[in-house]
């Protein structure tokens, strides 16, 4: 009985499920998914003859509904890594078949039994040059309302990043961030809460900064990269940039598992990763990809900014996801 709702939901969603020679790739939309389509789906279609349908944005609730209802319409999904670790534990994901997906060159930081890296990114501090006088140099400046007045924009959802930013700005050394001191982080965030505008999608973060609606923000580096390519007058600081990864997963019960595995192999191949990095500004998860990329692209990626770089702790987040999320949303609603 408990599954009826999930079943009905999934049944409706599965109305768009792919045929045998098709599969569905789901990601976050915008410039990132465009780059994924161009770099991964198009070459894969050409080589395998399997048509890759695009869907999105990624929705963890939908993914759960599909798996529980036994009617899975998505075959490969781009998700945040801390979610992937938890979802694997909850039995929502297929194990990756590493006889199909070559593992040797994949960055072990982003490879698990149930997920392979999609790309990795950094949160960087970006600003609209017309709306800010002077140059912010680090996260602490986002908490300095006197020196840098104006709205600031942060990622709305409970996820690795903002808590760490607040703690760093409050003087916690980078190597002492974990376990996270939530009380201290929220106290620090309280000092600028009235000036925060939240962004809930990458496209929105770009729009807020480009229009000057928010003067500064914590943005995904690829979104800043795309803004600059479009000629927007934005600045970015890589000081204390924070890396996290998106990974690719296959929901349990995928009807096109074999194609999905082959898609993963293709997407994480040196060539697929190199093409995507060049198109998106995100870093490859395949260590052999750099050889395939122009030198100036390599220099612009997150792994060229390791000085002062902070790796967000995905395992810590996966373990504490629910507790932190509850505090996070309660604090936001206050």
């Amino acid at each position, binding site marked *: 009985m408990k599954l*009826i709702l999930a079943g009905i939901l999934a049944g409706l969603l599965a109305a768009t499920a792919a045929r045998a020679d098709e599969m569905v790739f789901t990601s976050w939309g915008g410039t990132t998914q465009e780059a994924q389509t161009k770099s991964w789906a198009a070459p894969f279609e050409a080589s395998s003859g399997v048509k890759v349908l695009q869907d999105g944005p990624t929705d963890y*609730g*939908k993914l759960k509904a599909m798996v529980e209802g036994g009617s899975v319409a998505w075959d490969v999904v781009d998700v945040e890594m801390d979610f992937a670790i938890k979802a694997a534990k909850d039995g929502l994901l297929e194990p990756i078949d590493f006889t199909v997906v070559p593992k040797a060159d994949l960055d072990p930081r982003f490879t698990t039994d149930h997920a392979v890296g999609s790309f990795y990114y950094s949160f960087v501090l970006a600003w609209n040059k017309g709306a800010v006088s002077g140059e912010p140099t680090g996260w602490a400046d986002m908490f300095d309302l006197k020196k840098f007045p104006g709205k600031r924009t942060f990622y709305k959802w409970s996820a690795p990043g903002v808590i760490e930013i607040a703690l760093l700005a409050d003087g916690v050394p980078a190597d002492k961030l974990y376990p996270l001191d939530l009380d201290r982080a929220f106290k620090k965030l309280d000092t600028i809460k009235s000036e925060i505008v939240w962004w809930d999608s990458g496209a929105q973060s770009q729009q807020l900064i480009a229009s000057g609606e928010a003067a500064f923000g914590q943005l995904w580096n690829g979104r800043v990269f795309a803004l600059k390519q479009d000629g927007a007058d934005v600045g970015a600081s890589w000081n204390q940039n924070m890396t996290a990864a998106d990974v690719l997963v296959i929901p349990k019960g995928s009807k096109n598992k074999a194609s999905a595995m082959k898609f993963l192999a293709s997407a994480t191949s040196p060539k697929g990763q190199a093409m995507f990095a060049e198109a998106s500004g995100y870093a490859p998860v395949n260590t052999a990809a750099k050889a395939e990329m122009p030198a100036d692209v390599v220099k612009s990626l997150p792994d060229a900014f390791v000085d002062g770089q902070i790796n967000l702790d995905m395992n810590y987040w996966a373990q504490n996801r*629910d507790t932190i999320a509850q505090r996070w949303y309660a604090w936001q609603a206050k």
Partner: protein
Amino acid sequence: MSGNLPHRPPVLRKPVVRTRRGLGGALPALIIVSLFFVVPVVALLLRSVTEPTPGLQNYAILFGDGTYARVFFNTFLVASIVTAVTVMVAFPVAWTLAIMPPALGSIVFGIIILSMWTNLLTRTYAWMVLLQRTGVINRTLMDIGLISEPLPLINNLTGVTIGMVYIMLPFMILPLVGTLRAIDPMTLRAAALCGASPLDAFRRILLPLSLPGIAAGGLMVFVMSLGYFVTPTLLGGTSNMMLAGMIAQMIQSLLNWGLGSAAAFILLVVTMALYALQLRLVGTQRVTGGV
């Protein structure tokens, strides 16, 4: 659209099964309703008392936690404000429509209906463009020197109210026009002849006579506002979160479906209770706009 305006506005009309024979005809509809409404609602209720473990703990959490209490309060606050403002804006419009020559009236009526056909998301985004700090309204006011700092019109209660009132207006105007048209204009003339000022005539004649329409539209707007998601999410800040937004968060982000189902069930019960109350207070006839 013809020149004749419908006197009975299309509001909350419940199909009433009067005879046994009528049941046969209603069977397909009943099957659809039970399949797509009753079954999911039962499943929802079951989920709320079985996940993660059997019991009422989800309801205990919702009623015992200050955050959720704030969201509940906020939901009713926003719905009340939106309803009140909508009534105030809709009344003059409805009155003008009611006394307008029919040909002109149907044009205005068409414009109002047309706005309802435009995609909700599009309309809400349009408000974002107008209301934001760098938006049309703030830019204009700053250019002509009326203000030096942008007014905070978005990401707060002001933004939510403006956006929602705009969307709710037709639902208030339609039943109200029906009620106002049914009022005999001679009653107002009689009031004037007896020496009542226009304000008195409004307060003691027009307003009481139009109460059924206000009640019907007001209830509809209030109930729709309670469950609103898109507009508060886009035009409000996180501190203006309403129930629907909270439920979405529980389902999508926290993946806590037990808690989300419990919250959704509470919203459903409150909504149904309000409708029942309305039926009792005003009566079926009046709720559906008949006078």
